[in-house]
């Protein structure tokens, strides 16, 4: 037990510390509350949210996922500190109350395991901290903090703010836990006994030597261990380590629809153009972010998983999603008092968080959002900043000017005549328009690529022939179809998207729903797929949307198409807007014979970890931002490394990008073909084998 002056001193220090800590938390809460309202609910289904957040936190599953070794050591600290909350409380009681109060705990089973836990977890925390200090300061792990030269960093980050922060926290943990163990050891030494339930403390007791005067060591240990908490707390709320509170909360704040269903990463929050009072479209200043976007930098521990996955960053460009959160965080810290007091932020986000080149380097592939262990939504920030650039300021890459104009005028990004939209069909195929086949069961949404791009026209023709062969009762909208608006929306032009989408929803609703049937929509383009399935429900268009690989898989299962027989080794490239954003991984693989097919080889980065082809987020329509390599070249080399003769694509833009990469032009390079083309070829060969015409 402490002496009376010690108790009084601790009490006074605790009051001071609590005050400053409270103030720090209060400021953060005030800042987050300044955020704009959310479109999707962040609080409905509270029980499910709490359960999910707790489950992910306790299992540490998102931390282990991409970095098992780091996750292992992180779990030492995580579990250690969770237990340490109890230990600190017990130590506090031990300091303030006579030992007799806890005598009953002494040698009971609970007491024994508690002491064992405090001892062993303490040691594990120390091991964990040593690992992380080694990793950051000795090994200098490239995964941390090593940003491309072109990445914009807040001045405080440039001058080593993150390392300083890490050093302080590591020092705190080391001293806090180390001296707690030292105190426990000294107590044993003073009592002149060993305790097998506290192995580490017993070793320390032996090292310091036994004797009643060792009680001084307990006092020192207690003060440094618990006193440091008081000193650390006010600092802690400003450090990145506030993630221990913010991260579990953020995991429970995902987007959910009105009926509680989770909203996937392919969905963007809309702007309400009916509201005539809006003068700012998108985000220019920090306080124009939605509240979760202001929450993100506090949840972010700056682990850089997102940046390591980001196709733009991996290919040497100025974008690093984690730097965006880190910069937001340092800016928020530097203006926190003013912002919390209700003042506006002094400078635009684009001045400290992201460079122009970084803003326009994003492929909207969603890798960052999926990599984030704490549930941050970096992509939504980028889209909101693009909206400001396009809608409010009209300052964006020149090439997109043409794309937007083409979309406005011609209804397709190529700017080709709407009249030519059915030209892909040619004279040898029979493809009914809805006016010619009102009783269709499946509506084939061809998309602009399928209609106008020569390489994608082949895919559309192959798919239409497949549908005809399998006797699917289908029709197309033909000239009533327009661009879904995906390139406009991901390029920040929400208004243009809104106009195109509204027209399409009207056309689709009258084609599909007004007769109350259960007609389905199938598309050969994952961007169209995502728009029809995810974007349009926001505008009153809810459809049963399929990717062509899903419908083909169904037709094979029903025996209406022959099983695929692969003659060459093949690898499948997951398109971001089919895979990561919409979770369709199995259907295209089933079409190609299914997992386990010997000729079907996987690239190292596949499924959720698939690497973008470089086309998404309107990149297809502009020059790639400067970097060390083209995104598509990076991906194509990976495909080539599998030894495959064919790269199967499920997206006209992936196909176009991959086949135009530098390596794809070399002799002997694998061919890039769409699934529909492969199925059509398989069909041809099967018919030949069977001697059919």
């Amino acid at each position, binding site marked *: 037990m402490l002496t009376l002056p010690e108790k009084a001193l601790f009490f006074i220090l605790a009051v001071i510390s609590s005050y400053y800590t409270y103030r720090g938390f209060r400021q953060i809460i005030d800042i987050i509350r300044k955020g704009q309202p959310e479109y999707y609910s962040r609080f409905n289904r509270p029980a499910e949210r709490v359960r999910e957040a707790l489950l992910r936190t306790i299992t540490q599953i998102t931390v282990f996922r991409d970095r098992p070794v780091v996750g292992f050591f992180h779990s030492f600290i995580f579990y250690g500190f969770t237990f340490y909350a109890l230990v600190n409380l017990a130590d506090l009681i031990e300091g303030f109350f006579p030992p007799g109060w806890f005598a009953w705990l002494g040698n009971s089973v609970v007491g024994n395991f508690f002491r064992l836990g405090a001892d062993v977890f303490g040691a594990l925390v120390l091991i964990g901290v040593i690992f992380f200090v080694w990793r950051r300061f000795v090994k200098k792990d490239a995964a941390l903090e090593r940003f491309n030269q072109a990445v914009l960093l807040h001045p405080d980050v440039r001058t080593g703010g993150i390392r300083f922060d890490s050093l302080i926290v590591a020092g705190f943990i080391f001293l806090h836990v180390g001296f707690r163990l030292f105190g426990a050891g000294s107590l044993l030494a003073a009592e002149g006994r060993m305790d097998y339930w506290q192995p580490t403390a017993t070793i320390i007791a032996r090292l310091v030597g036994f004797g009643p005067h060792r009680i001084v060591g307990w006092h020192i240990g207690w003060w440094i261990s618990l006193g440091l908490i008081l000193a650390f707390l006010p600092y802690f709320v400003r450090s990145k380590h506030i993630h221990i509170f913010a991260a579990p909360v953020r995991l429970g704040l995902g987007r959910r629809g009105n009926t509680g269903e989770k909203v996937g990463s392919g969905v963007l929050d809309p702007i309400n153009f009916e509201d005539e009072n809006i*003068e700012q479209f998108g985000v220019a200043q920090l306080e124009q972010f939605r509240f979760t976007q202001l929450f993100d930098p506090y949840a972010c521990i700056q682990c850089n998983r997102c940046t390591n996955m980001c196709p733009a960053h991996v290919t040497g460009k100025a974008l690093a999603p984690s730097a965006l959160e880190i910069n937001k965080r340092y800016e928020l810290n530097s203006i926190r008092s003013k912002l919390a007091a209700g003042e506006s932020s002094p400078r635009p986000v684009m001045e400290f968080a992201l460079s122009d080149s970084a803003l326009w380097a994003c492929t909207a592939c969603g890798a960052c959002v999926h990599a984030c262990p704490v549930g941050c939504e970096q992509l939504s920030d980028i889209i909101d900043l693009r909206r400001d650039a396009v809608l*409010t300021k009209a300052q*964006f890459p020149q090439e997109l000017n043409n794309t937007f*104009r083409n979309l406005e005028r*011609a209804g397709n990004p190529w700017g080709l*005549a*709407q009249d*030519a939209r059915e030209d892909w069909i040619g004279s040898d195929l029979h493809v009914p328009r809805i006016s010619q086949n009102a009783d269709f069961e499946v509506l084939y949404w061809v998309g602009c690529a399928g209609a106008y791009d020569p390489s994608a026209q082949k895919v559309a023709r192959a798919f239409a022939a497949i549908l005809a062969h399998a006797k699917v009762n289908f029709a197309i909208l033909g000239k009533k179809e327009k661009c879904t608006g995906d390139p406009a929306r991901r390029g920040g032009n929400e208004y243009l998207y809104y106009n195109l989408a509204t027209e399409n929803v009207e056309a689709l609703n009258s084609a599909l729903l007004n007769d109350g049937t259960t007609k389905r929509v199938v598309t050969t383009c994952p961007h169209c797929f995502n728009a029809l399935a995810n974007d349009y429900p926001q505008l009153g268009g809810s459809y049963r949307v399929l990717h062509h690989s899903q419908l083909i898989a169904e037709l094979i299962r029903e025996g209406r198409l022959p099983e695929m027989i692969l003659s060459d080794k093949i690898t499948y490239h997951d398109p971001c807007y089919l895979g990561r954003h919409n979770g369709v991984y199995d259907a295209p693989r089933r079409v190609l014979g299914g997992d386990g097919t010997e000729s079907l080889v996987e690239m190292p980065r596949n499924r959720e970890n698939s690497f973008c082809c470089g086309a998404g987020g309107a990149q297809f329509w502009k020059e790639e931002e400067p970097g060390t390599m083209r995104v598509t070249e990076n991906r194509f080399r990976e495909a080539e490394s599998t030894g495959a003769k064919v790269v199967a694509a499920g997206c006209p833009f992936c196909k176009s990008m991959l086949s135009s990469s530098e390596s794809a032009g070399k002799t002997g390079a694998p061919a890039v073909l769409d699934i529909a083309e492969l199925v059509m070829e398989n069909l041809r060969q099967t018919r030949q084998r069977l001697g059919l015409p």
Partner: protein
Amino acid sequence: MKLLVPIKRVVDFTVKVRVKPDGSGVDLENVKMSMNPFDEIAVEEAIRLKERGLANEIIVVSLGPAACQETLRTALAMGADRAVLVETDAELEPLAVAKLLKQIVAKEEPQLVILGKQAIDDDSNQTGQMLAALLDWPQGTFASKLEIAEGKATVTREIDGGLETLELPLPAVITTDLRLNEPRYTSLPNIIKAKKRPLDTLKISDLQTDIAPRSKTQKVGAPQPRKAGIRVNSVEELVTKLREEAKVI
């Protein structure tokens, strides 16, 4: 300085035009219409002059049916200050347009008229020149560069084999070529603001002008469709065909 920018509503350049079955003209039913691209360049140039502090008011004017209001709003959203519509359903020939514009010039007293060198629908390429003649103002046509200083306009024109630079005293008429500038994309707040900018409508009768056509359209027909090409197997075959069948080498 006041700038007047006449703009024309035309069939959008992305539309494949169709001739009316009776050969009397182009079918405009349900066809997307927009601002003549050369006029868009003229509006952009006017805005740039204003942004450089060389002009203080930009007036856009259009002559045609009520639907031209939409085209005028586009110009207002780009940055023009106010708009005038001379409403008429009559088909106007370049001379009639030039005469009507002369009346507008008399009313508004601009120091500079900037307009597209031609409209992409009839490709007449006459209005600017006729307007300059009627006003007895100097003209700088096919401008690819424009500078204004000390009451003079310096116009660079793209001519066969090079560039010609003219110096014109103001007031003057300038017609724009393709390479003068690249028109801006309008921001959403500007589109909204454009709805509140003044747009005055005049009737032809207000302007006391003879707009009777001087020419008569005989017939409008679609061009002959191109014959399908053929694929040759070798350079030799290509050369033979070019020599013997096409007789071009």
